[in-house]
């Protein structure tokens, strides 16, 4: 497959950053040189989970094969543990880089369609939160949004004792263990993010009230995922609000095996129109 691993200077982050782009190819024996120069590919903006980077979807799933099968380009940013926000500490503008800089830049460099019906966003875990937020902040950009095991409502809608901490109280009492220090530094307190564009459920309520034309949603959480109940509650709430949700409650953990299965299922599910799908081997 045509895989591009890019290093570029990010104006938003004020440093060099990595991002991967897949341009879908056909099976062995075909060349991209035989396709027209003016074709524009449908595009999936695919976000990784917390602690991962721009290479992990490629390394841990068969993503390139699925992209070729459907003839869809894929953009893969990294995130470290920064929570898909402009950070509260350190002024790292991850969200500006991912949601605004990359679409603008990569659409100039690569043959990516800018039509809404050709654009999709999805993510795993923290990337599910980010994908949902991308769809909330730029609903006009996407036809569909996929969430695999993501903590959509990581910002509690009501204060959580004792210190307004972020997270899903149902997970475990020690959510704020040292490994999550970067995540905490990124979000800051829940109080500062509640009812802001970083608060997905607040944004969803606002959109529903305004009657925004939202993307379709694919929401999947496995029953063995520690965040399963929170995920199911969010799905129920979305339905209650009248949002178009494809609800997947199946067996699975919070891991790449689950991701690999559901990125394939998501690509089968989205309303995709590509002129160049992979022929049978």
């Amino acid at each position: 497959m045509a895989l591009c691993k890019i290093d570029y200077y990010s104006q938003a982050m004020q440093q060099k950053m990595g991002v991967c782009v897949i341009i879908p190819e056909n099976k062995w024996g075909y060349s991209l040189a035989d396709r027209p120069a003016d074709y524009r590919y449908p595009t999936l903006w695919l976000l990784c989970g917390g602690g991962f980077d721009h290479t992990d979807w490629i390394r841990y799933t068969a993503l390139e094969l699925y992209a070729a099968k459907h003839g869809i380009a894929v953009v893969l940013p990294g995130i470290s543990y920064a929570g898909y926000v402009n950070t509260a500490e350190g002024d790292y503008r991850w969200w500006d880089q991912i949601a605004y800089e990359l679409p603008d830049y990569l659409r100039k460099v690569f043959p990516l369609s800018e039509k809404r019906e050709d654009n999709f966003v999805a993510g795993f875990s923290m990337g599910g939160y980010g994908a949902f937020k991308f769809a909330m902040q730029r609903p006009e950009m996407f036809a569909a949004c996929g969430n695999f095991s993501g903590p959509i409502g990581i910002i509690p809608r009501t204060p959580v004792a004792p210190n307004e901490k972020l997270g899903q109280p149902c997970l475990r009492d020690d959510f704020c263990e040292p490994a999550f220090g970067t995540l905490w530094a990124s979000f800051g307190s829940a109080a500062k993010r509640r009812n802001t564009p970083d608060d997905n459920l607040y944004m969803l309520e606002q959109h529903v009230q305004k009657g925004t034309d939202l993307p379709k949603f694919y929401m999947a959480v496995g029953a063995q995922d520690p965040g399963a109940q929170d995920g199911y509650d969010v799905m129920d709430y979305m339905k209650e609000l009248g949002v178009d949700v494809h609800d997947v409650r199946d067996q699975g953990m919070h891991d790449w095996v689950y991701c690999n299965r559901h990125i394939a299922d998501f690509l089968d599910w989205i309303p995709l129109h590509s002129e160049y799908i992979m022929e049978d081997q």
Partner: protein
Amino acid sequence: MAVLELNALSTALSGSFSATVFFPDQPQMKEQSYPALYFIHDIGGDDTDLRPLHNLEALANELGIFILCPSLMHSFGMDLPWGGKYGDFVRREFPGICRHMFPLDESRQYLGGMGAGAYGAFWNAAKAPEAFSKCLLINGHFDVASLCEDVAKGAQVPNLTTANLEAVFGDLKAVRGSELDILRPDAPAPKAVFFGCEESFPGTEVSLKFAKQCNTSVRMGADLESVFDAGLRWLCNE
């Protein structure tokens, strides 16, 4: 300061290849399409050879040019008799793949190379003048006839075996004066050629003579960076 590593499929090469592409940063991406320099590496190198040049990304940025470097094994960018049509890849397929993936202007395609890659660039640009309007040659090893004869006599050449050379040039004793000998007086030449050499390059004398034969001169530079600086400005501005 943007660079990418590309892996894609080729029919000319019967499989996947690697390439390194230098291209402008976001604030410099203001055009609909950009000139493209396709660049052939030296023997023993690969697509990453230009990464150590500290000024190349800045030049791509300033001049608004894509520099696209494929990995071409020991081929010189020439077709191999048993497969690996590297010449066809350099002249046709690789530019075609890149024009599909990147916003490149087909009327501003240039071919270049370094060391043995400069030989391949000259040969291929001369063979496809409609595809490449300019040719950029850095520290070129142009005298392949002498190289082949020396190796046939048993000379040891870094990064090359006799079989490597035979795959490209066939009978090593029959290269001089053949169509593969670009130094012969009646050899076809690309439309416009830039010769550049580092001051420390031992093959400068051949370049001086060959440049004169092509009715041009050799730009000398203190180091590889300064030679590329002059060469890329020649491509884009002269």
